[in-house]
């Protein structure tokens, strides 16, 4: 089974092409995306995107490329991540009763991170 890598992209939103560029960075290096979650963090346009991607020999190249895209502030590789499936926690029980489809939210429990900004390690 291919292991999964999880990244968090902190970026600045101007329009939705930001998300296209984030996704395309993986696509261009032949990396599949298992899941993606993003949201506008504040009114100033700060945006965060979490992605679970299949591990791939191009993974670091994609992270480095992503780290130097205009509007991307930094990219964090989240290591030792536990993904918590909220279905198991009973939090969405009420919602699940009324919906036929499955609704899954992954909450990364982060062990350590490696961060890149414009090609440089930043913590």
């Amino acid at each position: 089974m291919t292991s999964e890598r999880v990244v968090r992209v902190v970026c600045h939103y101007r329009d939705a092409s930001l998300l296209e560029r984030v996704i395309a960075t993986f696509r261009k290096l032949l990396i599949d995306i298992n899941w993606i979650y993003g949201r506008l963090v504040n009114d100033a346009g700060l945006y965060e995107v979490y992605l679970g991607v299949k591990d791939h020999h191009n993974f670091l190249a994609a992270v480095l490329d992503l780290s130097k895209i205009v509007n991307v502030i930094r990219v964090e590789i989240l290591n030792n991540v536990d993904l918590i499936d909220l279905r198991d926690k009973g939090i969405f029980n009420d919602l699940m009763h009324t919906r036929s489809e499955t609704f899954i939210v992954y909450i990364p429990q982060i062990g350590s991170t490696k961060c890149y900004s414009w090609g440089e390690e930043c913590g």
Partner: protein
Amino acid sequence: MVTGAKLVVEALKREGVKVIFGIPGLSNMAIYDELYDYISNEEIRHILMRHEQGAAHAADGYARITGRPGVCTATSGPGTMNLVTGLITAYWDNSPVVAITGQVPRAVIGRKAFQEADVLGVMQHIAKYVVQLKDAKEIPLWIKNAFYIASTGKPGPVVVDIPRDLLMAEVDDIVWADEPLIDGYKPFKDNIRDEDIDKAIDILVNAERPLILAGSGVMWSGASEELIKLSELLLCPIVSTLLGKAAVPHDYPLYLGVVGYYGRAEANMALLESDAILVVGARLSDRTIPTFKDLQEGGRRIIIINIDPTDIKKLPIDVDVKICGDVKVALRALLNRILNISHNSSRYNWISRIKELKEFYAKYYYVEDDEFGLKPWKVLKTIREVLPPDAIVTTGVGQHQMWIANFWDVLQPRTLLTSGGMGTMGFGLPAAIGAKVARPDKVVVDLDGDGSFLMTMNNLAVTIEENLPILVVIFDNRSLGLVRQVQRMFFRGRVVGVDFGSSPDYVKLAESFGAIGYDVGSYEDLKTAVRRSINDAITSVIRVPTYRGELALPTLPPGGSLKEVILYDVRKGS
């Protein structure tokens, strides 16, 4: 109150723009309406190209000569889409271009409107950045931002897409940006550490067979002088990438030529025999280093200077010293350090070996005339003898580009423009137009192939109407020669889809545009035609008949090692 279009033109003027290459249409017409006065007052020059691809290449050529962003403009839809090839060419070669594109009004965007194209969707993958404006008040800031992004860090093209209603909108409370303001952008910073400089010097001084590999970063940072000085002090030979060729005067005795897929054999061999290599401003593409095993074998020490740290980190090889920063700054740091230490770099054996390699391989290159007509190397030598040393040369892409890579002598930095990364046919003539606009005092020559020239030759008209005398030399083999060569050598000789059944009469073609045409049959004819065209100061097209079976050699087999260099056509038995 001024219009958005007025803001565009005024913002461009404030960025120091003197020339715009473009074609008007419905969605950028408001910009042209404002340009009217600036053109009339001779504040800004407009060059009407004959296809938008040419406009982007011309802006690219202008940028490569001046080091400042070249500007092009196109209307929405097909106009902007026609820029794509030119912009990706600039992106792959790190050339700063700013494209101002008109877009359909916001009220109809996304509705498959007349001449609508998804500019963000397309350009975000082939340019350094693209922005679509949402408010006319943003125009001054985003024009400034575009120039900043295009020209800082690793340079590249930036597209500013402006819906037509914003160009027509009346704006008050205009805010002119003094500084760029881009969330989430920073140019790469110089991170040149003393300990890395010390380590690099230690490796280079103690190496027995050191080598410098120069890339286009040397040209962009204007560091040719520092490069040569370092080579002299270390007695360290230089090889280059195709684009790095423009950074090294070829009369420097320790320069061996272009390394790589179509590189000179002695350059490839020197790389293989070196025990330490200093890579300066090159990203080591698959064209330069077809297989990294060649670099990694033999315990060779590797030092890399690159402004983009990701270019180093992404390499699948161990790098001994990584110096992240501007090439000129880094080379000066190396020079300062080496001047402060005592060292004795005699390197008699290594320099003798370099001389030996040069002499050995020369036998294979400089074959005199046979029954197959004019020899490309001799054609280039003949032209070089007639042109002034500071003449600017552009190329198309194909066999002629490989002949130029190996047999054209660059005598001054920044006098060779070629599409290295993207390998875009049709680059030569429009890039020459951009170069001539930038440096009207220089002789500008497009050394082209017939296949390549035919792709953008409609721009000959531009050279006449704008009084931009350019010399075009066409290696005419009536074929897509490089593809033909690969079919012959590596696809079992199954030549298909490459030979032109019909080709124009280039003399008549030139004359139809108002240029002068020459058809030469000898080196002496060629010399005369080149001299005459320079003296006449009018665009000239010189057709050089070229044997269709002529090969671009040396080469490597597909995916091959630098060790597998092919030097001659085995079918000729020579």
